[in-house]
């Protein structure tokens, strides 16, 4: 015990600290600069533009609250906001529910080799550009499309999905499902097997174990997956236009409309800023839900 005092770690010297800082700066600075240049600066510009005005179709720097007052009081904006929020929320919920059985199977039932193959297959959709995938979805759901052709002989249909909120949600799911399955699979894969076995051992059947042990254990990952689905759907423009037929318009369509009709960039910026603020609030709330100490233990 006497030699414990002689082997003490020396206090970090000032030069060692400086060298560590330089090291961190060297590797940390480039991404930081990138984010500053292509995210923070444009964001600042976007916020600034909400106070500009448009005079005879020309953008004029200004310091007016007119755009904010107009948009926040506009009925069409409120309707679009509620509609978009509801549809994104519905997508997050549907994607989570539809993905869960698949993720469960991938995490717990399949062999590692099969799981690796399927994870690869889930990344493949990201190879093709998203609008292309939406166009191919149109082929399935159009009135004379594949789905109606298949179900007609069974005496079903025709179903009409295109140009409706249902079409938009289908598009959102095309966008979000692969990602949600991936995130859920990783989340479930990290649930300790002994916890599941311990639940079985204490008399908890297979289905019940999912609710009482697996979901609470994978809570953070499952919430993050749902949040991603919400964020992607909330800002998406392609699905509501090409599958939803722009009726009723979502916030992203509203932005495009403001620009197209009357070149009103400031009003479009107001909508965009409101969307960003909404997403920040939603993400903060979801992360609090995921990591919150109070919610963590019942």
């Amino acid at each position, binding site marked *: 015990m006497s030699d414990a005092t002689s082997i003490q770690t020396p206090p970090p010297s000032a030069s060692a600290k400086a060298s560590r800082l330089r090291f961190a700066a060297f590797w940390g600075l480039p991404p930081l600069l990138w984010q500053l240049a292509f995210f923070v600066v444009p964001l600042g510009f976007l916020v600034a533009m909400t106070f500009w005005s448009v005079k005879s179709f020309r953008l004029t720097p200004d310091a007016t609250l007119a755009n904010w007052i107009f948009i926040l009081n506009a009925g069409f904006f409120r309707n679009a906001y509620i509609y978009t929020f509801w549809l994104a929320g519905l997508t997050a919920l549907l994607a989570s529910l539809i993905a869960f059985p698949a993720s469960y199977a991938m995490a717990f039932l399949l062999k590692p080799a099969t799981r690796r193959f399927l994870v690869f297959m889930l990344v493949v959709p990201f190879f093709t550009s998203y609008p292309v995938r939406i166009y191919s979805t149109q082929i399935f759901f159009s009135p004379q499309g594949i789905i109606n052709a298949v179900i007609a002989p069974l005496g079903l249909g025709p179903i009409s999905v295109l140009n409706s909120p249902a079409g938009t949600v289908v598009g959102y799911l095309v966008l979000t499902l692969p990602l949600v399955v991936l995130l859920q699979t990783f989340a479930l894969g990290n649930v300790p097997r002994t916890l599941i076995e*311990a639940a079985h051992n*204490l008399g908890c059947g297979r289905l019940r174990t999912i609710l009482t042990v697996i979901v609470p254990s994978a809570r953070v990952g499952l919430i993050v997956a749902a949040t991603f689905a919400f964020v992607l759907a909330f800002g998406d423009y392609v699905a509501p236009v090409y599958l939803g037929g722009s009726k009723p318009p979502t916030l992203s369509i509203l932005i495009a409309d403001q620009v197209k009709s009357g070149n009103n960039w400031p009003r479009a910026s107001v909508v965009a800023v409101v969307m960003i603020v909404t997403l920040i609030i939603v993400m903060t709330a979801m992360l609090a839900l995921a990591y919150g100490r109070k919610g963590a233990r019942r």
Partner: protein
Amino acid sequence: MTGATAAPMLEIDRVAKRYGETVAVADVSFTIEKGEFIALMGPSGCGKTTTLRMIAGLDVPSDGEIRLWGRRINEDAPWEREAPLVWQNYALFPFLSVVKNVEFGLKQRGLPAAERRRKAMEWMERLGIAGFADRGVDQLSGGQRQRVALARALALEPEMLLLDEPLSALDPHLRVRMQSELVRLHRELGITFVCVTHSHSEAFAMADRVVIMSEGRVQQIGAPREIYRRASNRFVAEFVGGNNLFSGTASGAGEGMVRVDGPFGSALAPRPTDVEILDGQAVTLVVAADRIDLAAAPSGAGNEVEARVVTLEFVGSSVTVFLETTGGAELRVQRSLHQIENTPLSPGQAVFARWAQAEGFFLPA
């Protein structure tokens, strides 16, 4: 045979478990009586944990049968059994408070909330963790977690408790305390304990009977003293430690005795009744290290072997003396610290190792 009167509580009958090409358990049979404390002991990979998991229903045997009170339970799902397990890493639910962890099994059985809270608190009281009821399990020390795991299992008031290396994650001084606490719990509750361990000191200290396993097979079953004093084969004699294994050649030595000559010297031992030993046969004579005396001069009684002290190893109040015989064989002798202090030994010293003829026994071939 309808009367289950004679049937033991649990029968493991020629059970095997294979994972593809890998054999975890080759062929294991033993029985467990109600209220026994059984230890499954062996080196890692001997199949002891797999055997325990099959009793819990977490693994299904590839062959053989497990019977509870005479009824085959091979295919019963784990949640249909009453055999709660205390896990090596405790496997507590981190998203539940301590008391909710203890209540977990009772909740699955549909006990009303008030009733299960009362029972959970009773068990936590008994195990000295009632003060942590509303804490998270991540705020507990290893020893406290162990108690939560025990309370969670015992709250079900099972007739059999399974323990998988219950003490291995604890620090040494806590391990000894928990060991005696487990023995006390077992005595008080009167239920069956089945405990997996790789430590013979743990197994011998706690269990009524020990099942020693190696390479998926049972090597010996018996009370700790029985195994310690009469190892049934070389593996057991070496694994339990504290034994000298002398190889040599047998020859007749009068009525009921065998003489063995080898590098260790020569000694007499009782002729075994169950196996025949022929003159000139190669045999292994086992003598427990704590049954050998050391003396400065020969006395002419019993077996005596001349040896030199190589080194001494002090473990608490006992000392192992390592010696080398004149013939070059290793010899170990266990003494108490007290004895060593009375007659000091130092490396290089020449001594006579002496033991009574009745202390030696033979390993089967």
